[in-house]
């Protein structure tokens, strides 16, 4: 925000002069811009063409894959590929599983992470730096390092066969980054605000819920978005802890669908990929600016 403001205030005085200058440049100006235009067009083709190609191929019959080049448009639009993909790819189940794993994980991560960030940043106590460092170290630990013990634990307490192992793992694995991000956001809020609210008779727990939490509402959305994509797109934990067909998440299901179905008939496979991307695209169309800012913020802080 501040960058934009300074930007426009600095640019304003010069704005008066350039227009005639630019006009006088005329055709030369466009020649100079040509390489830029070329780069932009190339960029657009590289980004969009694979997606367009995939969508077109999702509408072809199996005959067409043999008889004509893949870059041809479909002769007839076979929308039934989507129905086949939905049925054979078990998509109703995998989407449900992904949601059942993601939503509770997100709620728990946000609730626990924001509370812990508050306790570690706003509250004053001995040893909080040591605890904060211990939690931060967790950001660097790869999933492989906790995979086998967790698998053993879940097996021994008979949680395999449910989605609980996924939810528990996602929450624990997602907490370090969440706590770190929340602690940074709380650092910007003066402690006096919370002290003042407790003078009015509210306990500190109460002022956390009625003042602290609402004040970082925007940060909570950012954190939740970052975690949503990490969890929704996870493959390692999903294929380890939920490897039965009825527990497959979207990613695991898509992988096994391509294994058993993708060699025979490409149309439905392309359709399944399109469906998977379509859901994310819908979300992205509404929230793209937030998502971009959020993920970048998560990276800089991590």
């Amino acid at each position, binding site marked *: 925000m501040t960058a934009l403001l300074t930007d426009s205030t600095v640019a304003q005085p010069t704005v008066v002069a350039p227009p005639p200058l630019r006009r006088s440049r005329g055709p030369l100006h466009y020649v100079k811009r040509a390489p830029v235009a070329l780069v932009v067009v190339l960029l657009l083709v590289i980004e969009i063409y694979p997606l367009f190609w995939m969508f077109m191929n999702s509408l072809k019959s199996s005959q067409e894959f043999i008889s004509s080049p893949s870059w041809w448009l479909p002769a007839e639009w076979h929308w039934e590929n989507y129905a086949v993909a939905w049925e054979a790819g078990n998509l109703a189940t995998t989407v449900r599983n992904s949601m059942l794993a993601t939503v509770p994980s997100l709620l728990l991560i946000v609730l626990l992470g924001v509370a812990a960030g508050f*306790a570690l940043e706003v509250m004053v106590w001995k040893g909080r730096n040591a605890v904060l460092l211990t939690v931060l170290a967790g950001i660097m630990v790869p999933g492989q*390092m906790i995979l086998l*013990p967790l698998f053993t634990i879940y097996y021994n307490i008979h949680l395999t066969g449910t989605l609980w192992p996924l939810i528990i793992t996602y929450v624990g694995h997602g907490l370090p980054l969440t706590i770190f991000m929340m602690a940074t956001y709380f650092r910007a809020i003066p402690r006096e605000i919370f002290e003042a609210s407790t003078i009015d008779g509210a306990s500190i727990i109460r002022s956390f819920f009625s003042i602290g939490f609402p004040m970082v509402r925007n940060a909570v959305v950012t954190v939740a978005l970052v975690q949503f994509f990490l969890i929704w797109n996870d493959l390692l934990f999903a294929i380890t802890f939920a490897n039965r067909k009825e527990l497959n998440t979207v990613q695991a299901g898509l992988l096994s669908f391509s294994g058993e179905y993708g060699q025979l008939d490409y149309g439905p496979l392309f359709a399944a990929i399109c469906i998977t991307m379509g859901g994310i695209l819908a979300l992205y169309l509404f929230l793209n600016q937030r998502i971009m800012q959020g993920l970048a913020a998560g990276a800089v802080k991590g």
Partner: protein
Amino acid sequence: MKSVLGDRRAIAILLGPALLVYTLVMLVPVVWSFGYTFVKGNPLEGFRFSGIDNFARLFVDPDIRDALFFTIKYAVVMTAGQVIIGYGLALLYIFVLRRSSVLIRTLVFFPVVVPTVAIALLFQKLFQSAPRDGVVNELLVNVGLGSVDWLGQADTAFLVIVVMDIWRSVGFYAVLLFAGLIDIPEDIIESARIDGARHWSLFRHIIVPLSLPILFSSIIFSINGTIKVFDSVLALTGGQPGNSTTPLTLYMYRTAFAFSDYGYGSTIALLLTIMCLLVTIVIFRSARRDITN
């Protein structure tokens, strides 16, 4: 007023649950996994103590050498690619496209949020050679070059993995570096221009030095992510042909679950964890030295 923010009961209530989950899901398993490195076996067949056999095996196992080499090669190539191309795009956004860059930025970023499995399957088909050519081979054939068995040879398979992962992630690094570049005050650039700095010298002496901190952050983030590469390789090549595209993460997974060797699997995981820690420490050190100079 200290007593209010030092309320021990409140701290316990707020921090307790998160700390409990973190301890059970992260701390205990990390220590437990370290314990596994001294045994051989798996939970179903039982374990037996094997001393430092697993560590000794790290030094003689040819597969681990290949996996380590692949991981490092991938991390180096990817980090260079992500940061350099990302930086190029960020410069394009901010100095050439300016205000109109929003659309391109949004578009190039989109693959970042798309599930890796979906993208990997798409690239499998784009670079397919049998039973029918994918679009890349069709293009090659049409311009007179032969079709290539992209995923059937180690070198070209590596190339496809890199191309795919750059396509998938570069929008992210572009936005990250864009956010850093936009923080460079306009008046600094303006006064450098007045002093006669143009194009290359402006870039070399003003813009690069001022964006060093964000470049370092990007490099750390990139290495830390690429060293753990798993999804894209598993879904695109499955480590094939042979073991030629198997990173440490996938080799660990295979060792633990296909060969049921938890001990050696955990040893590989430990190696991976130490690599992540070392990389971060080394880069932080060198970054700090640069800034103090």
